[in-house]
């Protein structure tokens, strides 16, 4: 469904991505792992059109490379940023409303679905997004993207800074999202949830993919974990 090949990206003169190639199939949860600064976030920002890139990004038989972000969003790609870019002065409900792309055509998720997934968001529906806790903000960002009905959602470090209880909740939620037929490309630094919920994993190092395989393959590949993941 998503096939990225030989993707290059630059920040000014520095070459960040050196030909990234990866693929996500229908309904799959795929994790993109690696240490900080290896280009994981840049990869998904490039796919979303937020970072200028060269190469090929094919999504549902269309080439996306070079299109502006809002067009890419309408093709069915969703992006959940790492910094939980919620709109702080708008209420939870208004934040969700902004995630809706097409007001005339109902997608697979309604506002009520979101509140059912996260009852705490319903309680805080009329609270400004800026005063939510870190965990609630993370839920809100994921829901805001989901309500736009993407076929594939790319999530950047959703468990960063969350308590272990919440990390588990996020993992369960991602599984439920995938069950509804939404593919997930998950960027993570820690292996914990990535290995338990992903069907396949990629490991990145120095701007390229250095490992590809099933979670069990990565569990066995001690040298890969040592060289590219463990600190």
């Amino acid at each position, binding site marked *: 469904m998503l096939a990225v090949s030989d993707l290059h990206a630059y920040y000014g003169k520095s070459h960040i991505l050196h030909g990234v190639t990866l693929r996500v199939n229908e309904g799959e949860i795929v994790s993109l792992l690696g240490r900080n600064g290896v280009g994981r976030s840049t990869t998904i920002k490039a796919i979303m059109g937020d970072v200028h890139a060269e190469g090929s990004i094919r999504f549902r038989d269309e080439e996306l490379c070079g299109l502006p972000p*809002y067009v890419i*969003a309408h093709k069915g790609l969703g992006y959940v940023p790492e910094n939980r870019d919620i709109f702080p002065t708008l209420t939870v409900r*208004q934040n969700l409303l902004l*995630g809706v*792309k097409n007001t005339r055509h109902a997608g697979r998720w309604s506002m009520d679905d979101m509140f059912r997934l996260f009852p705490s968001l319903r309680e805080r529906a009329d609270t400004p997004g800026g005063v939510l806790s870190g965990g609630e903000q993370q839920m809100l960002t994921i829901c805001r993207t989901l309500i736009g009905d993407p076929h594939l959602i790319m999530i950047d470090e959703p468990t960063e800074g969350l308590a272990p209880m919440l990390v588990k909740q996020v993992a369960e939620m991602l599984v439920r999202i995938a069950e509804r037929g939404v593919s997930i490309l998950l960027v993570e630094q820690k292996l914990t949830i990535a290995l338990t919920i992903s069907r396949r994993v990629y490991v990145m190092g120095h701007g390229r993919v250095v490992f590809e395989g099933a979670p069990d393959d990565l569990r066995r590949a001690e040298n890969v974990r040592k060289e590219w993941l463990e600190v």
Partner: protein
Amino acid sequence: MEQIVLFSILNGLVFGMLLFMLSSGLTLIFGMMGVLNFAHASFYMLGAYFAYTLASRVGFWPALVLAPVLVGLLGALVERHGLRRVHRFGHVAELIFTFGVAIVIEELVQLVWGRPAKSYQVPAALDFPLFHLFGSAFPAYKAFMLLVSVAIFVFIFAILTRTRAGLIIQASLTHPGMVAMLGHNVPRVFMIVFGIGCALAAVAGVIAGPVLGTFPGMAQVLGSVVFVVVVVGGLGSLSGAFVASLLIGTLQTFAVALNVSVGNVLMAVGVPAAASAALHDVWKVTVAQVAPILPYLLLVLVLMIRPTGLFGTRET
């Protein structure tokens, strides 16, 4: 005295709301694009001139609607084919671009309509005193100006807070990248806001034209005060622009109405300096004479005490 206070408040409201029609657009455009649009008051001037020409053909009322629509479209074109291209070269280039647009508009206005002020009359239907109080008349036209600007204020407020489009605009003020990735065409939102901002300035131009004068320098006269308003209110803050517009509007009308000298004021607050012969010329200056300086004085004070402006969040 009651007469001066009451009429100054009324006139201050009229002038303040007029300022708000310009400052609201300017501050929204700044909030979104990070660019202080030097040409903003030029669109106000275009509104007045377009209305002057249109009014002579189709009458004042159709001109009140048509002129802002035309100016709004022109503004949208300037954004779409000018500012958007210049944007990638950075803020300095954008600033200079808007400066250039202001000069081009001023020169074109002189070329088309000439240098002398246009004798542009208040429409006959509104040319009567609305009421008399303490022996002075309050013209119906000023009440009409107030009515139009309040209606526009309510309209903008409703759109920004009650509609989805308004939410998109609010969110784009702070997080344009995220709004785009949620599927909204942010450049188009910018263009529409720029166009509406210009149209609002033009409405101000149409209604102010007969009162403040329709002449090629009108953009500069009001433009500099409008900049003071948005900086005092806090760049990018709509509520700040509203408060600062009314503040500066009333401040100026009060100062103009007060026919006392600086010396009198100092005496009244207990500074005896005015009685002496030294600096005699300074003490004779009346408050009305310093009125034009007051907004700038306020600007300097606000920037010294609160550099973000009254309601702003970023340094100016």
